[in-house]
């Protein structure tokens, strides 16, 4: 086995030093009734070449680009990933290192994450960002728990237009705590209806997603004012498509106390849903109640600038049960990928790419409307939108799979009231030609 360097001679020499007669004797401290008697039922190892064949064969059954045209977003977006970020990520000094516990030989990771934190605060208009969470969903759950810690209140409200799977994760995290999660309704325009907010009593936090699950851009500025009518309540702005903030007003500008969401769009492959990147940022005054790792700037003994893990007293390995969360690492490599991606895009690039995403999606929206398929919602959208299709579209949708087109996500399973609606997504990877082809097929 090529991963194991031990020769028979090595083993014998080492056993002698250890004073064990054979490999089994190494486990003498395990009582006999705790030893596994049966062998593990595992296959013979594959050679590298057999493994390649096996994996290629399994992957061939997947309906992924470039062979399939996938008009689906819903929290996982197909964006181009530049070759530089793929290759730089494989720099194994990044790749095979762990949490930077020893800063002197981890400055690469540390400076990168410091840059990540900085770029995330600039993207979201926030004061401070952590080194990342697992994904958008658990990030939102942690944000809602953070509002409880910050306010000592017991109830939070989450919009029904927040990604349904994110809401499920929030419910999972809240289930054993005794704290309550209430749902805010969606208005006729596809945005969250906050008119009943005042009747909900004392809320620790209120979460909206923008663009929301229907692709609609929430009026975060107005929402912030409504939510902050109760000065204690924290405004949580979630997102699943961070690229939108190349174009839209940032959550921070709109008064958000916490901004959190999924960063997969920034140079991270979709990989059937994970790993993603939980981006998480807050206002300065909440820094000590914020979960997750933080990197800070400092100097070494010679006065040279360097970076270290900091404010670790919030963390579980120091305060154990009093920690702000149980998270003990971050999505280091995904945060590194996002940093490379944001660096490659730049301020000019992100604006252009963001616009192109919206414009191509608008083009599909307009083309479908022209063909008679309108959106039930009037609110402006970014690179996703909802379309209502006539009866029988489910069959068309299935038939299109044969033509290697995935024509959006059926909303019925998530929103029974929208059972005749599909959520469509267009990014920069889908050209006008491909859009035209879809419209032609749908309108047949």
């Amino acid at each position, binding site marked *: 086995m090529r*991963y194991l360097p031990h020769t028979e001679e090595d*083993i014998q*020499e*080492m056993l002698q030093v250890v004073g064990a007669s054979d*490999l089994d004797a*190494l486990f003498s*401290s*395990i*009582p006999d009734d705790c030893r596994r008697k049966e062998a593990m039922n595992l*296959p*013979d*190892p*594959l050679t590298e070449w057999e*493994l390649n064949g096996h994996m290629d064969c399994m*992957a061939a*059954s*997947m309906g992924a680009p470039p062979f399939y045209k996938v008009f689906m977003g819903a929290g*996982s977006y197909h964006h*181009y990933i530049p070759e530089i970020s793929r290759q*730089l990520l494989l720099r194994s*000094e*990044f*790749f095979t290192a762990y949490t930077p516990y020893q800063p*002197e*030989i*981890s*400055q690469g*990771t540390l400076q*990168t994450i410091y840059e990540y934190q*900085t770029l995330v605060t600039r993207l979201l208009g926030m004061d*401070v960002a952590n080194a990342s969470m*697992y994904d958008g969903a658990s990030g939102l759950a942690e944000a809602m728990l953070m509002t409880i810690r910050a306010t000592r209140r017991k109830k939070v409200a989450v919009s029904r237009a927040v990604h349904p*799977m994110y809401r499920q*994760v929030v419910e*999972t995290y809240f*289930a054993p*705590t*005794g704290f309550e999660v209430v749902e805010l309704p969606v208005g006729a325009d596809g945005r969250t209806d906050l008119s009943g907010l005042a009747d909900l009593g004392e809320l620790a936090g209120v979460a909206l997603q923008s663009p929301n699950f229907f692709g609609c851009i929430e009026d975060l500025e107005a929402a912030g004012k409504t939510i902050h009518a109760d000065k204690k309540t924290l405004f949580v702005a979630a997102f699943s498509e961070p690229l939108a*903030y190349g174009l839209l*007003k940032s959550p921070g*500008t709109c008064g958000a106390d916490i901004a959190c969401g*999924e960063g997969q769009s920034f140079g991270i492959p*979709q990989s*059937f849903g*994970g790993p*993603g990147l939980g981006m998480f940022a807050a206002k300065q005054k909440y820094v000590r109640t914020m979960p997750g*790792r933080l990197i800070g700037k400092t100097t070494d003994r010679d006065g040279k600038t360097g970076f270290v893990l*900091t404010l670790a007293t919030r963390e*579980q390995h120091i305060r154990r*049960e009093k920690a702000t969360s149980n998270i003990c*690492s971050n*999505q280091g490599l995904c945060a590194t990928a996002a940093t490379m991606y944001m*660096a*490659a895009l*730049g*301020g*000019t*690039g992100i604006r252009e790419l963001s616009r192109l995403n919206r414009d191509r999606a*608008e083009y599909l929206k307009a083309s479908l409307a022209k063909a008679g398929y309108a959106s039930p919602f009037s609110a402006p959208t970014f690179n996703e939108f909802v379309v209502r299709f006539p009866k029988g579209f489910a069959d068309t949708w299935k038939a299109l*799979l044969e033509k290697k087109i995935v024509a959006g996500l059926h909303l019925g399973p998530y929103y029974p009231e929208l059972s005749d609606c599909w959520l469509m997504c267009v990014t920069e990877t889908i050209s006008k030609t491909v859009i035209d082809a879809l419209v032609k097929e749908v309108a047949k």
Partner: protein
Amino acid sequence: MKEKMGTTGLIFNEPLLWEKGSPGRKGLSLPRRDVDETPLDDALVGDGPDFPDLSELDVVRHFTKLSQWNFGVDSGMYPLGSCTMKYNPKTNERQASIPGFAGAHPLLPESLSQGALELMVDLQGYLGEITGLPAVTVQPAAGSQGELTGMLIFAAYHKQKGRARTKVLIPDTAHGTNPASAALCGFTSVGVKSGPDGVLLPESVAELMDEDTAGIMITNPNTLGLFEDNIRQVADIVHQKGGLVYGDGANMNAAMGIVNFADIGVDVMHLNLHKTMSTPHGGGGPGAGPVCVTPELEPFLPVPRVVKDGDTYRLDEDYPLSVGKVHAFYGNFGILLRAYSYILSVGKYLKAVSQYAVLNANYIKERLKGTYHLPYDRPCMHECVFTDKHQQEHHVATLDIAKRLMDHGFHPPTIYFPLVVSGAIMIEPTESESKETLDQFIDAMKQIAQEAIDCPDCLHESPQFPKVRRLDETAAARNPCLKG
């Protein structure tokens, strides 16, 4: 090689990203604009983020230089205890980048995602076989989320039995995240002191276990690198009072093919695929923390379950007792895929992996035990714990020893953990290291011990070779500067 491995080289300085570049530069190939611009309400439009504009080569050089300031497993031996810094096979990356997997949308219809579902079902099967706990979810995104899932299962199980319980027992030799995971689920954690041999005593558990206690979280082998040899008795005590036993599988690299965790009374166990199954640590993640349980607890696992139905694979949401979802989709599939590649590449030799990991740790323990103080002198599993007791006489501490190791070209072990040992030096060599490398490491440790006698200040002033020297962590925490 006789010379010390650590040496100086040409190390570049590199500014922060935003100190580079010039407005208008681009590092990314943007697709052609083929549609008209559509206006958007001014009230919604922002200024866009203030990102620096860099060329492609600017970006490449920046991150190449930064990477050179890092130490990874590919650079050298990385004996970070409890973290299992084994070799991350390159072929795993090749498999993860196959377009069918890397580009797959998680909400594709089942007919277009059979390969990914099959992979997860197969992986669940292998992990069930390796742990002995046959019902498996691969959804948790990291070890700590696996622990959280385990605690959610504890809570859901007792709720279904009709009586919520409020406490969880956690030994002082368990992993650091355990109490926080229990606290997140509303449990009060109750500490259990380990006995004089560094393992749990059944009587200590019996004294604390009652019918308000949901169960116990045990790390086995524990963080001292010792096998909890009273585990069966401990499990019986907990089970008799209606509690459950959680096994923190972070140290599974010692036990593959050696212990069947169901047989020793464990009900729920998480694995860290980035440790045992060779997926990259990535500077701190992403990991994956699958949870394996007994058939009795299967109904509580997160949804959707990934199941095989005849010849096809599908997602099943129909588990009314499930704790719910812990990840937006199905977990860190890209990591699961790498672990699967590793298991297929190593196959039945996984037992040898554990044997060699334990052999390597015991070899280091034997060869260093005269030089460094060994608080628990008994056979260890995959890691061994020393202290700085002998070196303290010369005013040299664990931290100094760790920093000096860098100059020798090694990543330091885990230090000051576990907390039960003062000045702990926790060494986990993993099976990846050859005897020559172990010998070099042992020589370096011995040289450092000699230096502690001859020139303590040489150690206080270390490290000398890395990009920066010891950093002022107090100043960093007092006046946090978290962005530029």
